[in-house]
């Protein structure tokens, strides 16, 4: 297990470098100028030119290497060793300034928005697990019963309804009509309930189907019959013996699901006014904010590599057979 972890960690910088290079090529190829405002005034041409030079926007080669050195901590190390004459209080991993949000560095933006998206994504996965597993068990215990069909219906709705519809409907019902919770706020635990629930629906639906299939398979297995024959109560059979094995496919789905939940929350963030990082994936590209694009993608790919690693390790820990 430790060997696997070390191997995967050693691969991580290579993967991030490949991601960096591809992102750079795509972002550089975006049409338009990164320093010109889309609307309104233009500063004098001399100013625009100076800005392009300052950010190395005149030369892709220089940009690629200098940014890589700053983002990877090489520049920081050199400054600490006294090899460069630049006096700087820059952070170790310096992802540069945001071209559009002039007063913020990419580091600051990520530090303020990433924890929000991570928390929202994890909360959504938690909801998805609770809803999905309960619905899945009910379905598996009485296949093709009314309850099973009902949970299938709900799953279908969960997958098909876009979150801007569910989100807007929930906002209208709870804060506006019933006066529970608030609109547009963020910072209290209750502010997280509606967006996390909205975000969880597609995942819950999928988990419900996975659990149901797994349970139906497992419930007809020999060791379950043995357990029943020994006279174990049905509750113990289902929750202790069957669920443990039926849960494995769900657990391996959790890795990608958690990544999706943390990155794919753009619409939910908009509707519930959640100050997360999802919107910057989209907006940074639209405004060709090069530093923000590169920074967000690099941080995120690192995070995803770690998430997948954690889930894989958990899987091995719970069921050592998967290590093979």
């Amino acid at each position, binding site marked *: 297990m430790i060997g696997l972890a070390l191997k995967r960690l050693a691969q991580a910088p290579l993967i991030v470098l490949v991601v960096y290079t591809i992102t750079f090529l795509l972002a550089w190829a975006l049409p338009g100028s990164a320093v010109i405002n889309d609307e309104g005034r233009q500063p004098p041409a*001399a100013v625009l030119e100076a800005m392009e030079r300052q950010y190395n926007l005149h030369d892709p080669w220089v940009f690629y290497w200098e940014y890589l050195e700053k983002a990877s901590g090489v520049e920081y190390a050199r400054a600490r060793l006294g090899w460069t004459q630049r006096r700087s209080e820059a952070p170790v991993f310096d992802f540069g300034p945001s071209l559009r949000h002039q007063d913020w560095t990419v580091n600051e933006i990520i530090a303020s928005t990433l924890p929000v998206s991570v928390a929202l994504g994890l*909360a959504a996965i938690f909801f998805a697990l609770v809803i999905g597993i309960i619905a899945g068990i009910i379905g598996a215990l009485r296949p093709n019963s009314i309850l099973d069909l009902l949970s299938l219906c709900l799953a279908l709705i969960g997958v098909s309804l876009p979150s801007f519809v569910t989100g807007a409907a929930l906002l209208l019902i709870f804060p506006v009509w019933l006066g529970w919770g608030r609109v*547009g706020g963020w910072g209290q635990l209750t502010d997280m309930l509606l967006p996390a629930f909205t975000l969880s629906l597609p995942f819950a639906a999928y988990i419900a189907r996975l659990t149901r299939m797994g349970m139906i398979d497992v419930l007809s297995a020999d060791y379950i019959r043995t357990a029943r024959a020994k006279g174990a109560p049905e509750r113990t059979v289902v929750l202790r013996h069957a669920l443990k094995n039926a849960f494995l496919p769900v657990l391996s789905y959790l890795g990608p699901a958690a990544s999706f939940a943390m990155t794919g929350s753009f619409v939910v963030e908009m509707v519930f006014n959640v*100050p997360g990082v999802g919107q910057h994936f989209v907006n940074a590209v639209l405004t060709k904010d090069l530093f923000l694009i590169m920074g967000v993608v690099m941080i995120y790919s690192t995070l995803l590599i770690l998430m997948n690693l954690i889930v894989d390790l958990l899987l091995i820990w719970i069921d050592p057979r998967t290590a093979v």
Partner: protein
Amino acid sequence: MIKLLVPIVLLLGAIGGVVISDHPLPPSSYTFAQTTDLFTLDPQRVSYQQDIRMSFALFEGLVRWDNETYEILPGVAERWEVSDDGLVYTFHLRTDARWSTGEPVTARDFIYSWERALRPDTAADYTQMLFHIAGAEDYFNWRSEALSMYSALPDFERSIDAALGLRARSLERFRRSVGLAAPDPYTLRVVLRSPTPYFLDLVAFPTYAPVHEATVERWTSIDPDSGRIEQRHGWTKPDHIVTNGPYLLKRWRFKRDARLERNPHYWNQDAIRSESVTMLIVSDANTAQLAFQTGAVDWVEDVIVDYLPEMLAQQDRGERNDLHKAPAFGTYFWSFNCRPTLPGGRDNPFADPGVRRAFALATNKRDIVEKVRRQGEPVSDTFVPPGSVVGYDADRSLAGLSFDPERAREELERAGWVDRNGDGVPDNEAGAPFPVVELLYSTNSYHGEIAQAMSVMWEKALGVRTRVVPKESKIYKDDLKTGDYMIARGGWFGDYGDPTTFLNVHRTGDGNNDRGYSDPVFDELMARSDAELDPDERMRILAEAEKRTITETMPILPLYTYVRYYQFDPERFRGVSMHPRLMQYLYELERIE
């Protein structure tokens, strides 16, 4: 089973950690919602309206506007004198103006800040606003030149010391050549390069606001490679920023909120009607509506939902009274490309003013406003919004081309485009049909609907064929700058109370002249107005210049004057100015208890 619980506990722990790290503040006197976050709080760099509004809450310049009448009121300067030739302004600063640190605000602070706005290193969008000061433009050009010479030096000649040396030489030159002087800490003398009747209006703008030198310098470094002074923007964060305006910045969280609280050092405490203000960023317009409905927000500064026409209908029926319409200091228009050819050497039919007039005459603006927009914008034939500038076109005699399909066809025929082969499409003398008219606009907005409506109008009235060309906004902007379009959507908001804030756009070679419009007669009129000392005569010349562009040469096709809808309950909130310049002083707004 225990093992299964571990991931779940991990999940909950992570969520809890994020929530606990949040510290709520007590409710503020009022909360308002805006769509976009502030881009910058650096007054020398502000450019967007929300940034300018915030700048007025945090910083105070020499003078300020009355935002109901746009008269000039005293700010840090308690009085001022203007020389008879209009060239020398002497400001007398009040001695009780203080920074939030308690230090006095002095003339030196202004000179420091204006030099900062003028140096190309700062990259201020509004640098040109300071070019009215004698020697300012020369200084800007000199330093730009010096910097590019510096970066061409061989490596070993560029160092921090060399860059600091260049900076010292620049400051020396600034002191010698730019018309600014502080004979004592509370007197500032400004010499202009030519009389500028609206100079005080400019001085009220944030570009002219003071910043706290010690604080800003702490976040400044010099780049040995380029010789440029580099500003790190950490100084605008709540823990660092030093301000001299009515409010202190207590909190500013990225794309989330900002919190203002009364500045106890501000000289004019009586002007502050609300102890504290919360600015809430709500990117989704619909969510902003729901927030307003639940009372979480007292004022929505711009209602931009798609269902605004339906809300306006409710208001007409008396079912609501929270929408407040202000005409804006801006004009929505479409640009005609005036360059002789299009990229790739294609002929540009719109290089001919006669063709531009024909298309303008064939446009039914009333239909566009009433059937497409449905938001109550006033139809406009002029570029400067009617009645928005005191003393300009006072008798409202300026009139542009309005809808007249008959005359439109005549204009097109006179320009040489007649249907010669009977297929319904006009042809030129060589028999070539009128090129397919391309309407360029940026996606994700209402421009597409207007483009569709205009295409149909032009096809019907003129027989031309059309094609709409929606492009993503960066590409649209690029095409506009390179002149790769025939007709493109545009819009312009004025900055200061003078027609030149609009008309300068039409000058040959102006940085915002996306039409490539160049008219010697117009340029000559503008130059005459620059030199004219008599204000009435100057306004008359400017009106003549505008008249030419809206009846003869038509670089743009004005459609309507923008409007802004504010949303607030008139029984619970007050102080919002309805003036077209749309500037709100956050300290003058208040909730009615």
